[in-house]
């Protein structure tokens, strides 16, 4: 699960950025004559939903619905007790509890009179979501969106810079530690700097990089860092000797 700082800094990503992204999604709906776009999101597949709404399912999974002419709706497996927090870090004003995602989605379609839906990245929809949707009376079609814009690139650069700077500052401190110990040191540094999530892999040159497993780090090792900062992933790898 995500246990780093999840936030929405509107200096980084002002609401106008999300308005433009939603407008791009709605333009795709108009082009395909679809009334709404469905975006699947879970704890590890959150990039697309995050890009469009800043929503990060720190645990569990959700469906994001972007109507062509109305505000986005979040169908959420998380407790309503965290909705105020979700609203504080996303563009959502409407969140519906959805322990069963597809029935809740189909209910929304009925309410809004939708007989078809666009689905972002349709082939990657989890089977448990795809099957009941594909066999319902709501037609589904794949929608492609270019999720690149200047704000996205700027945030990716920041994440990459953060990963590189911290790893450069900390890299030599691993000498004489086990990879477990060094992993702890890096976790502290990255998470205190605001990392949302972190994957660390170590290699001492005798095998491919892998998660910490108790190996001693001597004068030759490398660290691969995958860092998530405010929804943006960066990967860097550095090694000793430099």
């Amino acid at each position, binding site marked *: 699960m995500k*246990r780093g700082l999840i936030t929405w800094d509107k200096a980084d990503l002002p609401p106008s950025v999300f308005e433009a992204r939603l407008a791009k999604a709605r333009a795709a709906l108009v082009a395909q004559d679809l009334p709404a776009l469905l975006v699947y999101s879970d704890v590890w597949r959150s990039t697309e939903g995050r890009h469009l709404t800043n929503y990060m399912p720190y645990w569990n999974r959700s469906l994001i619905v972007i109507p062509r002419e109305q505000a986005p709706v979040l169908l959420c497996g998380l407790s*309503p007790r965290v909705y105020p927090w979700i609203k504080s870090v996303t563009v959502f004003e409407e969140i519906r509890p959805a322990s069963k995602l597809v029935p809740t989605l189909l209910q929304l379609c009925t309410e809004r009179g939708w007989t078809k839906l666009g689905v972002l990245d349709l*082939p990657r929809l*989890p089977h448990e979501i795809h099957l009941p949707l594909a066999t319902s009376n709501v037609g589904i079609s794949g929608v492609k969106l270019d999720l690149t814009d200047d704000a996205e690139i700027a945030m990716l650069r920041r994440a990459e810079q953060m990963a590189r700077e911290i790893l450069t500052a900390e890299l030599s401190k691993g000498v004489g530690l086990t990879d477990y110990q060094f992993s*702890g040191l890096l976790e*502290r540094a990255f998470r*205190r700097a605001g990392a949302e999530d972190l994957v660390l892999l170590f290699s001492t040159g005798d095998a491919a990089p892998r998660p910490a497993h108790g190996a001693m780090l001597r004068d030759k090792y490398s660290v691969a860092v995958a860092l998530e900062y405010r929804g943006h992933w960066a990967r860097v790898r550095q090694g000793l000797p430099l």
Partner: protein
Amino acid sequence: MINEHRRKQLLDLMAARGWDSILLYGNAWRKDPFRSLVNLNFSGDHALARLARSGEINTTFSDPWDAENASGTLQPDFEKAFAGGASAVAGLEFMEERFVAACGALPVSATADVEELRRVKTAEEIGYIKQACDLADRGYQRFVEVAEPGMREFELVAEVEAFLKENGAEDNFMLIASGGTEVVGMKPPTERKFQKGDSVTTELTPQVNGYYAQICRTLILGEPSLEQRKSFEIFSEAQCAAQDLIKPGITAADAARAQNDVFRKYGYGEYTGAKYTRVRGHCLGLYPDETPHILEDVDYVLKQDMVVIAHPNTYLPLSGYMVFGDTLLITETGNTRLNKTEKKLFTK
């Protein structure tokens, strides 16, 4: 790396169901079906184990480093890993549809069958969970040591995470909350600074060798109020009621009811429902929130060597959201508490 006990269980299952092959699929979020047979902490997006009736296991990975470390097959175009299909798949529900389509004929879901096999732990698995419990205890000790007024929630999580990783945790499921009666639940950490008098709650769930164990405790920064003490007494009584009851043959519903009845006795029955809480506990293993959940409508009969946590975590108007719970190993006649942390309302 191969769980031989599980291989035998799966072969028996395949024979009973008439399956020629079974796939165990894991992705970056749900590694557990794969790891139930091949206990490798893969770091890429996808991993697949194929078990044939002969007992032969083949592994395929989407990431080259995983493939190299496991001496498995690398398949960057992971749809091809499903070519030839299979009789059944554990993890079918969260497989991407393109993978299901690549199987050809739709396989049967083996997810429920495999989850049932996983519920009763082997001695080796219990050993890993005991190690995780020990780490959870030490992690909570660290939590109490470093928490202080002025510190931000995410900084405390960073410190605890660092401690857990230094001491061998692969992963950690951790929720936190801080404040007073306005706090209705837990979530990831925010930038909020702790204040004197805060109730600081956490579920701490480190993973060791694939297996999770959990501890839930509440820390008061400063002298607890009368209401916080009174609230904790209710939580403690509820958790003890479950711990006293849990043994082979009772149901998950019994364990939930025992906890909820304590809240009802004190006039707080409404706070045992879905508006204020999620579950009264759950199983632990290769996933931190394994089923069956401890809820009054779950009639699953508990068995020896299952590992559960009973936690009556909920909101009460006395104290705000409060948590209290320990990991329990179900024994032949009762249960053993695996956490060693003192059962009390922590103060600092």
